[in-house]
């Protein structure tokens, strides 16, 4: 299991729906922190890791923006595996001098996205229940971040921005899925208000979003002795 020591850096994940500005905010914040911060890229951006990139390629083969393959439970286990891999690889590195790890999407993404996908394909199942189920497994085998910054915005604007980034318009079904994911994020945030911090970036420019995230991380670092480490797996 992954067992960090007490002197480990603060682990902060940045979460939110597609197009809300997570990646820019996480990268911008990590750049401003310099050697004090380590950035863990989003799974789809880690092209140099053989296992990770091959698994993402397998999940992307149908070209779906949500990595759907028709085998949603397989996808869930594979994505959990990749989150665990990030931690296993990090556990082997020296983090001397690092104060904070900034993670662009972590286990919460797997929980809410896969819950939404699984339940869209199995109507009648409660997505909240499935998201909590996945998160509980993630907590058991990988641990959860010390703090999760949930960036929120206007879902319609985010959907447009996401469509522009992947250079194709999103179908109504995609928009519905993103709205459901947005709702599930808020459910998990309500479940765990000590870990989650909601940052509304709806009317902010990308640079202003970076500033908000950086300021939040700085404040968290100042309060670090009072933040319980959340990421220890139970066995």
């Amino acid at each position, binding site marked *: 299991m*992954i067992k960090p020591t007490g002197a480990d850096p603060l682990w902060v994940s940045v979460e939110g729906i597609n197009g809300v500005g997570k990646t820019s905010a996480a990268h911008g914040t990590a750049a401003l922190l310099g050697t004090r911060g380590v950035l863990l890229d989003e799974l789809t951006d880690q092209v140099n890791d053989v296992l990770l990139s091959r698994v993402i390629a*397998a999940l992307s083969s149908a070209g779906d923006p949500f990595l759907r393959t028709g*085998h949603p439970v397989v996808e869930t*286990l594979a994505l*959990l595996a*990749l989150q665990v891999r990030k931690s296993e690889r990090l556990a082997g590195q020296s983090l001397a001098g690092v104060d904070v790890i900034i993670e662009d999407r972590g286990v919460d993404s797997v929980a809410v996205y896969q819950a939404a996908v699984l339940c869209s394909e*199995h109507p009648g199942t409660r997505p909240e229940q499935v998201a909590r189920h*996945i998160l509980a497994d993630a907590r058991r085998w990988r641990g959860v971040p010390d703090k999760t910054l949930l960036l929120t915005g206007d879902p319609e604007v985010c959907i447009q921005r996401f469509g522009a980034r992947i250079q194709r318009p999103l179908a109504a079904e995609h928009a519905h899925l993103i709205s459901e994911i947005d709702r599930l994020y808020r459910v998990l945030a309500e479940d765990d208000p000590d870990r989650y911090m909601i940052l509304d970036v709806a009317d902010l420019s990308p640079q202003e979003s970076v500033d908000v995230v950086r300021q939040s991380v700085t404040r968290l670092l100042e309060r670090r002795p009072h933040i319980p480490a959340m990421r220890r797996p139970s066995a």
Partner: protein
Amino acid sequence: MTAIPELRRCTRGALTSVEGVTGVGKTYLTRHAIDLMDTKPLLLEEFSARTDTQPDLGAALLRALREASAGDPFLRGGTPLAEALVLLAIKRHDLDCVIPELAGGRPVLEGRGVDSTAVCQAVLLHPDDPDAALVTATALLSLAASYRSLPDRTILVTDDPHRAITRAQRRDRCVFTAEQATFMRSVCALFEQVAATDPARYRVVDRRTLGEHHATQLIGSLIQNTDAGLTCVSEPWQGPEAACMYCGRPQHRALTSD
């Protein structure tokens, strides 16, 4: 007094897995046992027997593990827990592929199932601590069971580890390193420990006490007798009230067979 609901009898086929350390004779004995059957189960090949040319998601995930482990025979790529989860994802894909067959009432025989993943990865995670390996193996099985129903019956073929290693070396025309042989001995021992934790599901075929003919007969009879009294199964992640994933009937307050 609280009424204990009974699970409903189902028309599905039985899922049986055959487990054991490499070289123990799983494939050889099982094929002989199937040859003697009139109605043959569908056979799901174990990882080592699969080609890299299949186009499906399971094959792509297996290729990813093979590439990341740079030819290691046990698919070790340095992150054993992540690799355990990828292997469980492949095993779930295997199940997805045979759900229609099982739903149609055909029995399915799985060459290595989730138990192999749990046992092998637990040994990799705790090579020098058999007690911790047993705890992790059962925890990995519990994780697997929350995303994929476990086999109805698991047949563990076991033997003296030295004989299994000798057999595997002869078959594969190779010589295992001392480290690989130690790993196989630990896997062999852990399989037996895990089987003892779940006697309702496991049946052990011990080649130390059974000759080839009797072992084949016993495997055949275990495969054929697994389908007696099968009950409905729901997707574990959906909760106990979900409909049966094979026959589609609701499980809520299911009481008896009909």
